[in-house]
């Protein structure tokens, strides 16, 4: 274990724990960011796609418009290009090949069939309209629950079924349920969502004849992974591809995916020797590309009379869509479901079966929180149902079963290693902050046609998990050591080069804070270089709440190595031993003798005659790799508590108060942690109440614009109250934990529980996200019909 646990948490200055204003914000808030759509190049052509209007069909013919053979390209033109494969090594996984342009069959609405090039996007769309495609429509698989029916049409004919992967786990289940006093079964469903970052995908592909290098400027959060995937599909060497991710307007997982559009643009840029640009529009984004979240759970909880959770039994179906997307594959979600459903609780037995089914929808992609949002909704809703059945409070059943602080570190029933924390304390603080006692008193006095309710959700989130975890899932991408380069410049500045990407995470600030902590160089002299495979060490990129732990650890390691180099040169200049040199405030010192770090840089680069021949020839640039002390991940955790008012006539749910108690371990920059948690919570509120992409029986997506796909809006958000706990992780360099996804996990569960609390007097429960007015009214009507029948 490293010796920096909890270092510098005083929050002073610029170092670890300082609430520094984000340095990148000046650029971004003044409209000076440079996004893909800001890039224009001489001779550039715009690309638009003819996309499938049908969810499932055989293609019988594709006819290019007259005279447009050199501007319209179909699958037959993509000579030497391979489709996208993302296979899992898990036993039984069935492989799919996602075509770059569909040739024989389309499997979801929006699948690209022809790429059309013109000097403007409008003209390219004109061309796309003129491409004539003959289809033989096939019945669509539009419902995850019907995908395994005997009569269901097959997406991938040679599979013989529509299942990417089936899994089963049984840990002492039969023994555990023997003493059950309460058994409740519920069915929960989450909606198919779209990530909807403010910027969609976009790219400019350019072929450099001289260097024979294809440069792909792409709105991606994982440039190195895109490069690896692209090289495979195009049959190029890695050295022939450079991926540049400029400013990126939010990612949330969608921008970690290798897109067919990227492969297609890369091929055409090389073939035509002209820059090709594609800017995804919101309709393409919503209907054809950015899909996530759709799960179905049948879950049974078994509890003893005293509230002890004995076991959980679950069957879960993940709607994986038509293809296995690169690099996370079609099975990441179901693998997560099986392994994290038990949440932060202790239990004696556990059984879970999962199916990742193929449907005629775009591939499911990992969205902030990945499977955790659905899992937390299912598990935490079920916990409340158990509590109601047992006649104990939601807080009591959680308190009874949460892993205790004294048990940390704790290995749970699915072998997750909870590194540190006090889950019960988070629960207690949330219960107190939302003031459940006052809400109960208020509920007793209710009359009229609305009801208030309070709901809780507790969860923990694995972040920065590494090699063994991902190798176990067998997907194409396995993170190893995270590397960073630290380079002192001749004027005493510091360049940090990292392979992760910052697109809202504030890494240009927080990584500089870590470097400042190690080297004492002022933050305004530290430059964080990211988003370019030519400049940065290989990295799997920004995903999985990993950057502050992994890139933060790598930056610290590289800075420590650089510090030794600085000390070596300073030792020469101070005529003392390197070991005796200390670094502080931009000065290298031996006792009262000092030389500035700037002078050290100037000497190495510009005045080498001052240094002896036996000086360390590696100079003032160091690349170091970092892993956590074990790669099972840091576990941040949180308790969300929400107070709602439900209008019994409209079915409208209003959020009256919202509390988040969370623990990110040592906070490198508390303001950034606040921002991450708040932003995530708002996205989770969208999942809970608003966002859903419905499909009809023909597989047609029904929300093709933001007028129909409802995002949460700022003016309707409650004032979310954040309460921090700060328990260092024993696994990470400074005790920090990944927190990027946490906020988006808790809201659906907490809000559903609050709505169900409000409706408890009517015997009504909602179990389907988003919680629309129609679903609330239907739950009330169903309860009322049940009442009438009994």
């Amino acid at each position, binding site marked *: 274990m490293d010796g920096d646990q909890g270092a510098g948490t005083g929050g002073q200055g610029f170092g670890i724990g300082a609430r520094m204003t984000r340095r990148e914000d000046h650029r971004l808030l003044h409209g000076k960011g440079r996004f893909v759509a800001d890039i224009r190049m001489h001779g550039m052509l715009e690309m638009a796609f003819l996309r499938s209007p049908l969810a499932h069909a055989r293609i019988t013919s594709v006819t290019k418009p007259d005279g447009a053979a050199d501007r319209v390209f179909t699958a037959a033109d993509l000579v030497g290009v391979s489709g996208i494969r993302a296979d899992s090594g898990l036993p039984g996984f069935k492989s799919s090949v996602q075509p770059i342009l569909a040739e024989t069959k389309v499997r979801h609405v929006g699948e690209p069939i022809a790429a059309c090039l013109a000097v*403007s*996007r*409008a003209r390219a*769309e*004109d061309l796309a309209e003129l491409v004539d495609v003959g289809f033989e429509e096939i019945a669509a698989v539009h419902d995850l629950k019907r995908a395994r029916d005997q009569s269901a049409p097959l997406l991938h004919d040679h599979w013989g079924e529509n299942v990417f992967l089936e899994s089963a786990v049984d840990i002492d289940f039969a023994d555990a349920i023997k003493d059950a006093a309460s058994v409740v079964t519920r069915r929960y469903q989450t909606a198919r969502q779209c990530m909807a970052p403010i910027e969609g995908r976009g790219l400019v592909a350019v072929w450099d004849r001289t260097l024979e290098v294809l440069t792909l400027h792409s709105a991606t959060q994982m440039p190195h992974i895109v490069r690896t995937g692209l090289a495979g599909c195009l049959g190029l060497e890695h050295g022939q591809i450079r991926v540049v991710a400029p400013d990126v307007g939010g990612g949330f997982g969608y921008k970690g995916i290798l897109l067919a559009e990227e492969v297609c643009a890369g091929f055409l840029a090389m073939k035509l020797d002209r820059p090709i640009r594609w800017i995804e*529009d919101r*309709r393409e984004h919503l209907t054809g590309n950015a899909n996530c979240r759709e799960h179905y759970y049948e879950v049974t909880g078994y509890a003893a009379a005293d509230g002890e959770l004995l076991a959980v039994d679950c069957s879960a179906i993940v709607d994986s869509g038509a293809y296995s997307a690169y690099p996370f594959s079609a099975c990441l979600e179901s693998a997560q479901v099986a392994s994290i459903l038990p949440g932060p609780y202790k239990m004696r037995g556990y059984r879970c079966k999962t199916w990742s089914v193929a449907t005629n929808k775009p591939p499911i992609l990992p969205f902030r929180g990945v499977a955790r949002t659905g899992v937390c909704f299912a598990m935490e809703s079920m916990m409340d149902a158990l509590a109601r059945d047992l006649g104990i409070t939601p807080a009591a059943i959680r308190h009874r079963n949460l892993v205790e602080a004294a048990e940390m570190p704790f290995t749970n029933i699915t072998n997750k290693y909870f590194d540190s924390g006090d889950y019960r304390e988070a629960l207690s603080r949330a219960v107190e902050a939302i003031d459940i006692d006052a809400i109960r008193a208020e509920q007793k006095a209710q009359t009229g046609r609305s009801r208030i309710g309070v709901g809780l959700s507790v969860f923990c989130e694995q972040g920065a998990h590494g090699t063994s975890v991902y190798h176990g899932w067998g997907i194409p991408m396995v993170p190893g050591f995270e590397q960073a380069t630290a380079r002192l410049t001749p004027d005493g500045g510091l360049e940090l080069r990292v392979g992760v990407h910052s697109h809202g995470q504030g890494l240009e600030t927080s990584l500089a804070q870590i470097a400042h902590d190690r080297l004492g160089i002022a933050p305004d002299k530290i430059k964080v270089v990211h988003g370019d495979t030519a400049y940065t060490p290989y990295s799997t990129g920004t995903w999985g709440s990993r950057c502050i732990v992994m890139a933060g650890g790598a930056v610290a390691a590289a800075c420590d190595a650089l510090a030794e180099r600085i000390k070596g040169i300073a030792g020469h200049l101070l005529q003392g031993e390197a070991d005796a040199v200390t670094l502080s405030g931009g000065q290298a010192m031996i006792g009262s003798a000092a030389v500035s770090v700037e002078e050290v840089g100037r000497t190495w680069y510009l005045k080498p005659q001052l240094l002896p021949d036996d000086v360390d020839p590696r100079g003032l640039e160091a690349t170091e790799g970092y892993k956590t002390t074990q790669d099972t991940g840091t576990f941040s955790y949180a308790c969300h508590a929400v107070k709602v008012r439900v*209008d019994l*006539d*409209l*079915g*409208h749910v209003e959020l009256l108060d919202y509390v988040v108690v969370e623990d990110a371990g040592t906070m490198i920059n508390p303001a950034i942690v606040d921002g991450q948690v708040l932003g995530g919570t708002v996205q989770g509120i969208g999942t809970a109440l*608003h966002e859903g992409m419905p499909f009809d029986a023909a597989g047609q997506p029904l929300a*093709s*614009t933001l*007028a129909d796909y*409802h995002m*949460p*809006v700022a*003016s*309707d958000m409650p004032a979310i109250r954040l309460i921090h706990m700060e328990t260092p992780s024993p696994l990470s360099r400074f005790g920090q934990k990944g927190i990027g996804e946490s906020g988006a996990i808790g809201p659906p569960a907490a809000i559903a529980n609050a709505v169900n609390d409000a409706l408890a007097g009517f015997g009504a429960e909602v179990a389907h996200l988003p919680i*629309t*007015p*129609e679903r609330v*009214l*239907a739950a009330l*009507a169903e309860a009322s019909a049940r009442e009438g029948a009994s």
Partner: protein
Amino acid sequence: MKPVAFQHRFPADLQDAIASLGAGASPVAGNQSLGPMLNLRLARPSMLVDLASLEALRAVTETASHVRLGARITHAEIEDGEVPDPTGGWLRAAAGNIAYRAVRNRGTLGGSLCHADPAADWVIVMTTLGATAILHGPGGERRMPVGDLITGPYRTALGEGEILTAVEIARPGPGARWGYWKYVRQTGDFAKASAAVYVDTGRDECRCVIGALGRQPLRLADPEGLLDGSISPSEAVARALPDQSAASLAQHVVALSRAIAQAQAHSQSQAGGDAS
């Protein structure tokens, strides 16, 4: 999505605009509804006849009995009180809840009525007020109630080459009352249900109207009965809308109940105002 290519014409005057509206041409004012439809290629006019240059469509005139608002008056101008509101605040309040301020800055009264979105605010409010649409076309001027102008979802009685130039609103009589309530899930959304009530005994007008129905606003029979309580909102809505889903019915009942309650509260506050 980018629009299909179109010509963009700025006519010299109203007659020129009317003459320009041949087959395939579409008038455009604030472009807040047509713009997205162009981008999605749902609307494919060969020419946009831009009314932005026609100052005549921004005219505001007042008489003892009426206020006439030019069709190009924006929602924001009504919201901000930059034009007279004969209802003493109802129009301003309705305008201030249309979509977002960015839309209100450019969106126009006339454009909203001609677009005839069933969930749009002016469509139901002007119908309920009994406002008059003033149209100019090749055949000269026509007048008709806004309730007759809107003939269905996104459909109007505008003829070939006809332009809505102004909306005329009568000054309510003494003691007139009104209410308007719409259910939007989030700020800026289109209404899921809406209802408006207008009672002007001096001018012998009484209307209860429900909107956001996927058709033009529906005037309920027996508005007096609704107001005096002899028929309940749920009875009236169920009778008028036999085919709506239970949830939609429930939401419209709430909208109607709350619009009626507003009108009644309005009456009381007016009475209170008179007393002081």
